[in-house]
């Protein structure tokens, strides 16, 4: 027992004496472990972020997009393609024929410059109807969202995003003010709008600043600003979650009739619900996670090679040391124990430091993401930790122990003379 303690004391002394080598070994393990933890945490955080944003939009929602698309893939509009097959009449037909739908809103979007006095802001506008706040959550800090009547009548009213309001009206006084909107598509210069509301600060959703936009009534945005007669997107709310699939089927049928299509392959529209969107995004983020897991694997390999190299580089020195230890009476068993003990100490110290650094940096990333306005969850995967520590510790022990076992089997003089 005394000998064991003495041996442990000596081993720790030895490790400290070779602090350079010990440090490099530990470094390899730290890189491997911390890298894996950070990368896996990033992947999980990003996935929950994206999925969380979808559910934030609201529930029981159906999206109708122009153009046919694979329901498990992203819609064509994502790739910047403009398809003109959805028109305002489609909205009316669906509203009349699909009883499960309680609210619907068409959307078009574009870029404009909003001017107030000497201030002007380049931003994007969303043109929709007064039903918008009944479909998704809208919170105002000042004023109100425009009503169905205002939208239908084509009144020139505007709701500002938080950032836009702050830039145009640094001193407040937005409500009732007249701003002008200018667009490259619009003929006849700027159109005046009366500000009736300012939205609460929302932060980023889908990597897009929700506070840097304005809302205007649908027909003005569509006809006067964009100069088009089609719809880019329709969102509909269903009365009950159980009716979503039924409503989707009905919408498809109604639109096929309306567009005079005979076969489903001819569909010039696509209908999706939030579950579909979640599935698509899960597919996309899963790819991201696999990619990140591969990177984590690479970081483990890099760490492992680091450990291996430093262990192998010192093989000749260590072999001579083993020869000497055998020459003064160490048994093979004692030599194996000593090297095993050293490897365990080095790898566990490295593993612990790696976990601390990995968790700490993952935490910093989540704090940074919060500061940047993302609702980022700080997620640490125990499996990632176990895997990373397991692989690093195993590499350390194998490459620390294998040369030692080989050297311990040599006659002492051969080990002493090893070059």
């Amino acid at each position, binding site marked *: 027992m005394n000998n064991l303690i003495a041996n442990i004391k000596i081993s720790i002394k030895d490790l400290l004496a070779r602090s350079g080598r010990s440090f490099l070994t530990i470094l390899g393990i730290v890189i491997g472990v911390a890298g894996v933890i950070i990368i896996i945490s990033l992947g999980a955080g990003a996935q929950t972020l994206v999925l969380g944003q979808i559910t934030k939009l609201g529930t029981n929602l159906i999206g109708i997009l122009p153009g046919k698309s694979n329901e498990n893939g992203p819609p064509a509009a994502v790739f910047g393609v403009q398809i003109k097959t959805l028109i305002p009449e489609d909205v009316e037909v669906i509203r009349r024929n699909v009883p499960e739908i309680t609210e619907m809103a068409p959307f078009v979007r574009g870029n404009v410059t909003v001017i107030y006095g000497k201030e002007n802001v380049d931003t994007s506008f969303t043109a929709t109807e007064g039903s918008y706040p009944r479909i998704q959550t809208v919170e105002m800090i000042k004023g109100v969202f425009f009503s169905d009547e205002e939208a239908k009548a084509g009144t020139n009213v505007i709701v500002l995003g938080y950032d836009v309001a702050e830039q145009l009206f640094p001193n407040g006084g937005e409500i009732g003010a007249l701003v002008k909107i200018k667009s490259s598509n619009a003929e006849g210069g700027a159109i005046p709008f009366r500000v009736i509301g300012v939205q609460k600060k929302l932060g980023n959703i889908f990597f897009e600043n929700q506070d840097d936009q304005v809302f205007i009534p649908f027909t003005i945005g569509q006809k006067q600003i964009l100069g088009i007669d089609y719809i880019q997107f329709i969102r509909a709310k269903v009365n009950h979650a159980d009716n979503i699939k039924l409503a989707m089927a009905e919408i498809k049928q109604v639109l096929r009739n309306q567009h005079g299509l005979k076969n489903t392959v001819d569909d010039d529209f696509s209908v999706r619900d939030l579950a579909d969107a979640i599935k698509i995004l899960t597919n996309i983020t899963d790819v991201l996670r696999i990619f990140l897991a591969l990177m984590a694997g690479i970081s483990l390999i890099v760490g492992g090679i680091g450990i291996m190299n430093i262990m192998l580089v010192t093989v000749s020195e260590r072999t*001579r040391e083993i020869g000497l*230890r055998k*020459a*003064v*009476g160490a048994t093979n068993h*004692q030599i194996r124990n000593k090297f095993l003990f050293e490897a365990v100490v080095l790898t566990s110290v490295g593993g612990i430091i790696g976990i601390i650094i990995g968790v700490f940096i993952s935490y910093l990333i989540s704090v940074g993401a919060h500061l940047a306005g993302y609702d980022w969850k700080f997620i640490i995967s125990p499996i990632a930790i176990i895997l990373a520590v397991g692989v690093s510790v195993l590499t350390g022990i194998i490459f620390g122990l294998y040369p030692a076992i080989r050297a311990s089997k040599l006659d002492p003089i051969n080990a002493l003379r090893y070059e």
Partner: protein
Amino acid sequence: MLIELKNITKDYVNEEVVTNVLRGIDLTVADGEFLAIMGPSGSGKSTLMHIIGFLDRPTAGEYLFSGHDSRYFNDDELASIRNNSVGFVFQSFNLLPRTTVLDNVVLPLLYSKEKKNHEVKAKKALEAVGLSDRLYYFSNQISGGQKQRVAIARALVCNPKIIFADEPTGNLDSKSGATVMEILDKLNQEGRTIILVTHDLNVAHHARRIVTIRDGEIISDEKIPETKRIRSW
């Protein structure tokens, strides 16, 4: 008899070329002798000493150590003999780098049956070689002569019957070499068997008996009369 070698041979095989380093060595060494093994380089003298000191194994032949046939020693028994029956002093010192003088001498005790007083014993051994004032120096901070004395202290610390010295003065200046030989002679006077390997006739003449080897065979074995021995003091 302490050491009895009968027809010991050692072959090295290197890329299928066999070198006969030792070709049938017969040698007996009694307890308390001071023996020098002489010969030019490549004669096999170091190999012979490594075999006697259990750092190497013969290819064939019989080696009786204190009457026991060494062929039947297992690894643990060999380790135990290396630990407390023999002590080695190497030409190139073979101290642990980045380790203090004291810890270098403690090293064999870690592998011994002695459970206590490691530092006390190590300090005593270092006192015997006159290095009490260098205990906490690192092994790379002392001179060559001091390194060799540390190595002798390490060989001594487990109180072995035999001390082997392989060209112990080979890397030292003459003054340090004389000190080392003086210590070895003193150890012999205390009753320890000393087996020395050298190619230097002056060093060999510190011993009481010189065995000369050439091409793996013993060509002469003579006793040195006390009057012809070189004494360092």
